[in-house]
């Protein structure tokens, strides 16, 4: 397959069209960078490794990239390994967002792992949205790991979404330290079915005075899927505020556990948490059914809302 048709096949599987030509992008198939386009102030240095790539991505201080940078990681074959090592540096006052698609449409036995080290400089703003598109077989082992530092007055937002196709096995491990008045938001939305296994471990450490953090995990499970959420938010400084939100809708023979840990080490800090696990809320269900939706349609809409 030519590189162009591989690009097209990956983007098609993700339900994407060719993005506009003004957007920066990086497309990685297996261990090859098969497409890239840069914009001013954005530097990407990618090296192929035996089973993936190693990339340094940086945005120069003060540069604000308005259009999201598109990244696509994926593999079209049924089996294989893709290991991504990513170092992201956002200079002081820089701003950028990345929309990453991880596309494994035919996976039977694929391991996709990511090791990211992210530095969001003082006053910088960085968002990373990762959408996974898997096939129906669920033959993917996904191991995303990130260590993040958020500087003074900086913002970091990450969203992980896997609601199309089967999960397979996923083990998310993110840890973020937040400086003074920095803001952290980590969101995971995952829908599991069959024998999917989901484990999420997100840690936010609010070290700086006036820093804020939200950890949010919304999971919907069917069949025999299992999920475990370990979200931990620690506040170590005055006026640090945080919230942990774990919601899991469980149907059929699925099972879920949520272990939110909130830790406050300063008398002027405040952290809250909410966790709910259970079948679809009966009042929500009956409200939609009282408008004429069948039970299945109503459940589907409620879950779509939770994951939306």
């Amino acid at each position: 397959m030519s590189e162009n048709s591989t690009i097209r096949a990956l983007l098609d599987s993700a339900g994407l069209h060719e993005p506009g030509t003004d957007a920066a992008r990086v497309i990685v198939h297996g261990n090859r960078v098969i497409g890239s386009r840069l914009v001013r102030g954005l530097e990407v240095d990618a090296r192929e490794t035996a089973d993936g790539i190693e990339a340094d991505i940086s945005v120069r201080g003060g540069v604000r990239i308005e259009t999201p940078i598109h990244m696509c990681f994926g593999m079209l074959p049924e089996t294989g390994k893709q290991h991504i090592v990513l170092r992201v540096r956002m200079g002081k006052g820089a701003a950028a967002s990345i929309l990453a698609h991880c596309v494994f449409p035919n996976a039977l036995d694929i391991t996709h792992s990511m090791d990211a080290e992210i530095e969001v400089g003082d006053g910088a703003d960085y968002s990373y949205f990762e959408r996974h598109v898997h096939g129906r077989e669920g033959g993917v082992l996904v191991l995303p790991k990130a260590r993040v530092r958020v500087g003074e007055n900086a913002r970091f937002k990450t969203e992980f979404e896997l609601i199309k196709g089967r999960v397979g096995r996923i083990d998310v491990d993110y840890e973020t330290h937040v400086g003074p008045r920095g803001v952290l938001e980590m969101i995971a939305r995952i829908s599991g079915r069959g024998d999917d296994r989901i484990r999420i471990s997100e840690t936010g450490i609010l070290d700086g005075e006036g820093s804020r953090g939200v950890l949010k995990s919304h999971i919907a499970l069917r069949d025999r899927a299992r999920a475990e959420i370990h979200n931990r938010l620690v506040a170590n400084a005055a006026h640090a505020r945080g919230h942990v939100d774990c919601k899991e809708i469980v149907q059929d023979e699925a099972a879920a556990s949520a272990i939110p840990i909130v830790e406050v080490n300063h008398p002027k800090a405040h952290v809250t948490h909410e966790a709910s696990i259970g079948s679809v809320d009966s009042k929500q269900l009956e409200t939609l059914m009282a408008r004429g939706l069948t039970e299945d349609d109503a459940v589907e809409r409620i879950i779509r809302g939770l994951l939306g």
Partner: protein
Amino acid sequence: MRAEEKPIGSGRLEVRDLSMTLGGKPVLQHVTIDFWPGHVHALIGPNGAGKSTLASTIMGLAGYQDYEGDVLLDGESLREVPVDERARRGITLGWQEPARFEGLLVRDYILAGAKNGSDEKVRDALLRVGLDPERYASRAVDKTLSGGERKRIELASILAMKPRIVLMDEPDSGIDVDALNRIFDAIRDLKARGATVILITHSLTVLKQAEHAFLFCNGKLIDKGSIDRIGRYFENQCLPCDHQDGRESPFPVRES
């Protein structure tokens, strides 16, 4: 009346000798009511009288299906008919406390029951309850909406559904004066389209929107008639109270 809003036919709802026990307590006792098609009815009475229970039973909600007696729509028993099928036959309910939905957009919520949805329908329904579509259509029906906003959005979803029989449990609770007038307009619209409306209320102003009133106490229908006569309940509370099973009336009895 617009072309698409032609009268929607009968929808004769009858409650026949309905009794229900919940948690060992009789909460409805031998209630019989004929709701007149195309008319506006009001159910009134003190807290715990059984008004919401009756509405839940008519809607067929879980936990309210074990009753004696019957509920009939156009002569047919609804005993075996599940909630969603009752809704498809034209019955719907606005809750005393509407549900919150995380992530479900107002637009999608309103269109849930509409036969063929469009942005126009969403706009129209929101305008009718006095909410600006630009500001509300893309918000979620979640805890960020105020209680009154949620109530109005629920009513908008009912209007978009074009039901034949609408049960509205305390439609005025948490509603400001201006919005209340919109809601009264909506009730008149529903009636104009031939819908049967059943209002549950503690307010004389809402009662005045109705044509027939029913007074409940302790699970019993103790009086019915014109709103003027039954409405005196709001001045006198339970008139001579002989429906308390020998217990003393919790309400002051004042002779008028």
